[in-house]
């Protein structure tokens, strides 16, 4: 308990709090960037993944939670229900960064695929019980197909997530990797998780 409290204080302090707010805002703004260049992806966790990498898993979890809170208040309160998914993304991204997944692009991509599977597992029950399997995410026709072949709501929501999330998260991890390689070293050296990059 004492160790978990000290990890929280280590990752959430006066230095990292503005970074967490930046990560939360980046999650929302990347959605706008994706629309500007007309990409068929969500990429709604880039801020969470980046902060989890450069600060730590607890900061990543907070970034995801605040991003969904802010998204909910700006656009649609239904986003608030997916906060548990963002906690999973923040936690796994931080742990993946600790073991060096972001040091090379060919380790970042498989870590992103695993992240996508975990995100699909976490989001399936929420999509099934809160939204009846429908999330208006563009892949709802897959839920229709899986239900037509006899799968339950939870299975259909999971398989629909599995069709989209691994690719989305793998691309997100690659983008975060390339972003961190292009940010000047002088800035990265000031970040607590510099050793993860």
């Amino acid at each position, binding site marked *: 308990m004492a160790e978990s409290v000290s990890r929280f204080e280590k990752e*959430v302090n006066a230095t990292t709090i*503005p970074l967490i707010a930046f990560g939360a*805002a980046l999650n929302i703004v990347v959605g706008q960037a994706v629309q500007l260049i007309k990409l068929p992806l969500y990429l709604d966790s880039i801020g969470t993944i980046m902060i989890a990498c450069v600060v730590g898993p607890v900061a990543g979890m907070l970034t995801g939670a*605040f991003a969904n809170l802010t998204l909910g208040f700006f656009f649609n309160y239904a986003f608030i229900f997916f906060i548990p998914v963002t906690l999973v993304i923040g936690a796994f991204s931080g742990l993946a960064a600790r073991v060096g997944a972001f040091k090379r692009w060919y380790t970042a991509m498989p870590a992103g695929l695993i992240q996508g599977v975990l995100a699909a597992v976490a989001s399936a029950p929420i999509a099934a*019980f809160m939204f009846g399997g429908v999330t208006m995410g563009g892949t709802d026709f897959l839920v229709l197909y899986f239900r037509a072949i006899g799968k339950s709501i939870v299975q259909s929501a999971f398989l629909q997530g599995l069709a989209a999330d691994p690719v989305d998260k793998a691309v997100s991890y690659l983008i975060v990797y390339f972003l961190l390689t*292009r940010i000047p070293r002088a800035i990265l050296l000031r970040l607590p998780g510099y050793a993860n990059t």
Partner: protein
Amino acid sequence: MPSSFASPDMQTPELPRRAYNPLDHYVTLTIVFAAFAFRLEWQLAVLAVLVAVTLLSPNKRRVYRGFLKFVLPLILIGFLINGIFFTGKVAFSIGPLKFRDEGLLFAAAVAVRLALIVIAISYYFSRVNSETISEYLAGHGADRRFIYIYLLSVAMVHLMRDKLQKIYTAQSARGLDTTRNVFTRVRYLLPLLVPLSYSYIAESLDRGIALRAANFSDKKPSRSTKVVPLLEIEVNKAGLLSGRILLAAAVGVWMLRMVK
């Protein structure tokens, strides 16, 4: 040189005051609780009252904007998918499509729950602004660090959106073409996100230094620590009591049902 610049007539300006009625958030909490704990018939009754109250409010456009744009299509597609693919007796048919009663009931339960939660929360935020909520929460023991993160992220979203638009315009002038294939367009994200991230990471690190210099505590401040608020919140005591009674009554009704 005068020993003090303060005139004897100078007074410390009073903090701006805002009224806050806790009944608003207790009603929202009670409705969200009812959305998960009550039976469908009771949820429908609560929804009917909620819709009647919100339609009579002056902020009804703001309350229903998000609901109509995002939640209503979700509900309709939910009826379609679950009505067709659940097992059970056929309730009705439209052409070749057969809608099952179990699926429609499930979709109805999801729809009512979603509608209750989204409309209740929308109504609450149409009546209270973020600053008032933040000061109220801070005055009641909420961690100021989390309030700061939320308020800063909301402010940053607006600033970053404007900056992103300018970066996009500049990059388009340099040849950024959004009609290329998907892989090329993914690569095009980097010239947009790198300058944005670089400037805001640097700004965030500088802001962190300013917070430390201002003695922004690394730890959650204890209740005995006096923190100077930005606003003075006048809490409606009658609303607070009524709200607590309302929520307790809802929980009591649920517990009675569980015991039976």
